[in-house]
């Protein structure tokens, strides 16, 4: 029997859904095993009846086997849908780092909503300064961006920005086969990275900014290239969950000859990547204090769950 699915996106960019489509040729075989009852991206099921005739306070959500939800929570409508879907779904999958950790948009949590609105509607050079939008037909914002598990119980986490199609197909296949759990293996990006590590930076001290390219020979494979941290640049590989290239590939940003920025989030629940990364840098002789914009760069994809917050106002110097 086909797996009944409710799919939706919240405070997201659609990249997770595109990653589903990037499953590629196997998708055509997988689709008939899935019965989408809702998918804003691909089909026309409506929340309140197909002609909007339903009760506006009761979303039309049937019982489903799986809810696949991407994006964090940014407004009351998203929060309501999440809570309602949770009641009707046997399994809830948080798809992508926004759903798992808040994602890039949770960087907004470094400010209050009013500061954010001030910039958007009264602080942009081409915008005519105006009051914040406010209307019964647009939902008010939540006080900050939330990861899904701050609001409801999440059964399966598929992190990544975006998650690799291998893992999406793998998790869905596991549920089709009747399994009740699925989890990515707890390995670091470094565990799957072919670069040469000698446990010592080429030059100790200051960490370089990405204003110049890494040193490598483009005609040589990656296993002839020196570790990015050891070259003196910040790479979050040591504190980031592996899997961005799927089951077998080399980490994707490394393939592009660029450092990891942590899009798969922490290796295990409860880890604090910023603390662990400072330790990793110190151990090879780099001065972690020299990382520019340290707090935001090390929490870029994981700013929900209170990892990013407005800083207390600095005392005024007299």
């Amino acid at each position, binding site marked *: 029997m086909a797996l009944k699915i409710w799919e939706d996106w919240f405070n997201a960019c659609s990249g997770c859904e595109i990653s589903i489509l990037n499953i590629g040729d196997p998708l055509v075989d997988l689709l008939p095993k899935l019965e989408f009852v809702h998918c804003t991206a691909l089909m026309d099921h409506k929340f309140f009846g197909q002609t909007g005739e339903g009760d506006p306070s009761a979303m039309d959500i049937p019982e489903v086997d799986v809810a696949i939800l991407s994006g964090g929570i940014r407004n009351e409508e998203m929060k309501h849908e999440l809570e309602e879907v949770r009641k009707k779904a046997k399994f809830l999958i948080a798809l992508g780092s926004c759903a798992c950790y808040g994602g890039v948009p949770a960087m907004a949590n470094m400010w209050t909503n009013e500061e954010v609105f001030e910039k958007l509607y009264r602080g942009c050079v081409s915008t005519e300064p105006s009051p914040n939008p406010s209307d019964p037909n647009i939902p008010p914002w939540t006080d900050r961006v939330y990861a899904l598990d701050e609001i409801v119980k999440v059964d399966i986490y598929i992190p990544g920005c975006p998650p690799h199609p291998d893992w999406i197909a793998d998790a869905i296949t596991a549920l089709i086969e009747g399994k009740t759990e699925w989890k990515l293996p707890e390995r670091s990006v470094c565990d799957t990275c072919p670069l040469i590590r000698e446990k010592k930076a080429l030059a100790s001290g200051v960490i370089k900014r990405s204003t110049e390219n890494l040193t490598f020979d483009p005609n040589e494979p990656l296993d002839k290239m020196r570790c990015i941290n050891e070259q003196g640049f910040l790479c979050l590989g040591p504190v980031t969950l592996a899997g961005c290239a799927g089951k077998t590939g080399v980490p994707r940003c490394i*393939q592009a000859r660029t450092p990891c920025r942590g899009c798969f989030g922490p290796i295990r629940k409860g880890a604090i990547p910023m603390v662990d990364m400072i330790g990793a840098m110190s151990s090879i002789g780099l001065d972690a204090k020299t990382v520019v914009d340290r707090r935001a760069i090390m929490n870029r994809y994981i700013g929900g769950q209170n990892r990013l917050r407005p800083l207390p106002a600095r005392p005024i110097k007299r």
Partner: protein
Amino acid sequence: MGKTINIQPVTRIEGHARVVIQLDDSGNVSDARFHVSTSRAFEKFCEGRPVEEMPRIVCHICGICPWAHSSASAKATDAVFGVTPPPAAIKLRRLMQAIAYISDKILHFYFLSAPDFVMGPDADYSVRNVMGIVNQAPDIAKKVVHARWLGAHLIESFAGRAIHPTFNLPGGVSKPMTESERQELLKGAQELLEFSKFSIEFAKENVFAKYEDAIKSIGVINVGYIGTVADDGSLDFYDGKIRLMKPDGSYDDFAYHEYTDHIGEKVMPWSYPKFPYAKKWGNFSMDLDNPVGIYRSNCLARINVADKMKTPLAQAELEEFRSKFGRPTHLTLLYHYARLIEMLQNAEEAVQLLEDPEIASPDIRAKVEPKAGRGVGCVEAPRGTLIHDYECDENGLINNVNLIVGTTHNQAAINMSVKQAASTLIKDGKYDQGILNKVEMAIRPYDP
């Protein structure tokens, strides 16, 4: 006051929006609006970030067109640092963008819009979608899924990531292309070109010829257009001057950094995105009979503003299109047609770029030093002219960002098309799910 019709959510578009249609006592449309339910506020949370990190932060604005944001951002950072990337770097940026755009157009045409035409606008909602197409036309579905995958695969095999790339950087790109990579990618690009040729022939026969009446009516509005053209007036997705065309076809061309002289943004209390408008055309009005300052972006806009296409097969298609519909044409459903002409140019351009050995030059990045400055970088994103405007302090940390993204230009036009479609389709209080879907069909061409 009469009944209110709520279409929620608008489907087969990106993100969350609803349409609210207000009927009067006799059941005719008195107003209709397209409400977008949130904003993510990149303009705010980019403040304080190192400018060289911007291309890999702002790409997250859109998971469908991350390469457009990555390119525009890299160009804005080039401008901040005052550098020009080496020729091979520009060719590589153009190439990645062109291949990514082919996947984007496949997604929109086949996955999001085709169900309205292949299954029919009044088909039951449970089959009016890509799953319905998979069942009804499995051979085409396989071809389409494969072509979409191929585009992503080509990009990943060279640049690591197809979604949210890290490849574009201030001053150039992160790695050069080897000769063997060039040969491999060329084969793939040629396959995508064949698929692009198939797509436009398929659509001309199976969609545009069959839906002439719908094309002439649904969502049609008489407004202006925005796009980017090269010095010779040809459509260019990566670089050129911005052209803002009035509804009558007359136009102004301007450089990126002059955009604030021409474009302003209104805030409406009932939707989170802003409403850009042409400042020099008078006082903003979305009145259907007499709109002022309203222009559209995305493919139909580009096809209208460009004097010609950049590549031969796309040019032949443009000539056929113009002989039928003129320039500019205001028929909203023709966005779908224009999209496939553009896909052809993207594919031809990808092949041309890969046939040029210079793209495999090892010289791919100019060195940059953090300094204070402002830079405006633009490209044509799939959904329209994309404007990234950054200012940073002497340490190269961002202190001011302004963004006008492709779909934002279309906010006013989408609202007008919704109202136009609702007003012509709903009479005397009569409507059904097919009619409400046709109202959404006035939105989908914009691919918001």
